[in-house]
């Protein structure tokens, strides 16, 4: 009795392809999640409208501004620009080495470095995303190994 292993090979190939595709999808999904979380945390650490008003009142309206711009106008600009730091986060590059994938993000907004060093937004975001990753990976493995 000679056993034909072609069916098994096909099954392995199918599983391998599913692993590759779904693995790539998971990495993309996690990368986007990382970015969204970082932005969300960035928005949270930004000063609120009330905080800005409080500082404005404390300084008696004497805030640094461009020539010809009134203090109130500068305050309103600052309120509008609250999300700038959060929105500034972008994915810079994705590196893959062995079984490890690194997703790098960067923020080109002025003073972003100062805010990040003070609040460690990206680092906290990586911790949050990493915590749920293992569960997601297990679910994915379940999907892939049961693909047939």
């Amino acid at each position, binding site marked *: *009795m*000679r*056993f034909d*292993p072609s*069916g*098994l*090979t*096909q*099954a*392995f190939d199918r*599983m*391998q392809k599913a*692993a590759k595709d779904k*693995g790539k999808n*998971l*990495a993309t999904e*996690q*990368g986007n999640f*990382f970015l969204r979380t*970082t932005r969300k945390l960035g928005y949270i650490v930004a000063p609120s409208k009330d905080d800005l008003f409080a500082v404005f009142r404390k300084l008696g309206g004497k805030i640094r501004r461009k020539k010809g711009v009134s203090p109130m106008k500068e305050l309103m600009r600052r309120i509008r620009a609250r999300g700038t730091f959060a929105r*500034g*986060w972008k994915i*810079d590059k994705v590196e893959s080495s062995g*079984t*490890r*994938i*690194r*997703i*790098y*993000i*960067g*923020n*080109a*907004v*002025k*003073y*972003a*470095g100062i*805010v*990040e*060093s003070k609040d460690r*937004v*990206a*680092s906290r*975001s*990586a911790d949050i*995303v*990493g915590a749920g*990753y*293992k569960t997601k*990976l*297990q679910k*994915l*493995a*379940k999907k*892939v*190994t*049961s*693909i*047939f």
Partner: protein
Amino acid sequence: MAAATATGFLELNIAGFDKAISTAKKALVALTAVFAVFKTANFWKEGIEGAINFGNEIFHASQRLGSMDSGKLLIAQKTLENAGLGAEEARTQINELVESGRSMSTLFKGADDYAQALQNATASYGSQANVLSQSAEKLSKVFEIIQSVGSKLQTFFLAMTARFVTPLLAVLNFLNSIDLAGIGASLGDGITKAASFLVGMVINGNIGEILGLSLKVGFMMATDYLTEKLTEIFEILKGFKFNPKIFNALEVMFTGLALILGASIRKAIAYAMEPYLGKEFGETQRGIAKIETIAGKATFQSGVSTLEEQGGLVGGIGGFAKGVNTPIKTATAKLAELTAAAIKAGEDAIGKAAGPMKKDKIMTEGLGAQDPYKVIASSMAKVGGGGGYMVQGMTIEARNQIKQINAANLANEINAKTLVAVEKLGADKMKP
């Protein structure tokens, strides 16, 4: 693009994912091995069961036809089939022939056609007929005993099937799958269960146990367990009024058969797993299988020798086992040899056939020179049963006596015609 003033990174490790895939692959290989084992074991089981059932059926058919020799019955039926009748029609014709006491030649257009048909049937089924002549009754007994103690064997196969039905289903579907959607539609929950089993096995980490069970089924259960169960059956058989030496020999023979069976399974697995586990694995396993086969054949032969000494079932179960283990080319040559030997055996074979035939002879001798049919017909007429020996009102005993006489005559006629056919077509052609 301006340089980033703040940066961060996320690291994802997919080692666990790769491990899960790798484990699933190993699981599949193991399950495929189980599948291969199951298929092989089933092939053997069905083959042996089929032979025993066939022997049982033809024995009872021949009993219904007045204790006619089973081998002769097979030849007669196949001769009729060769002459152009369907299988069912052939059986009906034989039944009627025995009931009426007509000559065999009345079934055929001419002597030449009959000779040719008989020649063809003997060439194709002579070997089987020979086996049946010697062993149909014993096969029938084995069948009956297995029926009575068969629940043990059934439990064995059921337990094995139940244990592996889920992964087997998965592997079976896997191997046969081309269209996933189609399979999903036709099997639905089965696949889900199978997949769940695999995943569960991966998560629980009991792959080792599964592999162990696979090995148990493959190399232990199919050989040791089966041997153990067969030994149990033989122990029960010993309780019957048979020659215990025959059953001791059968036990040895089946131990040999189990070794051969195990070797076949090992060989099948070696071929199946070679693409995944390497050539070295395949060669090693095949080497072991070869040694097991040699050992099995030697053990088997030892049992056969004892059986031959005791006049046991060599032509029956032993013959079947020999047959299935013989390569096609050798089997073809052996068949021709056995066919020629069976035909040349001639009247001796009929003489050795069955007990009832001897009783018939004594009975007819007791009638002297008178035609037994006429004597019975006359007797029936005297008691008011009518002049014909097939008239209604004849006792069952008388009818059976006639059937037995007719069956004996038919067997003699077949034998005589066989010799005529051989002479007509040339004895040289019958040599292997």
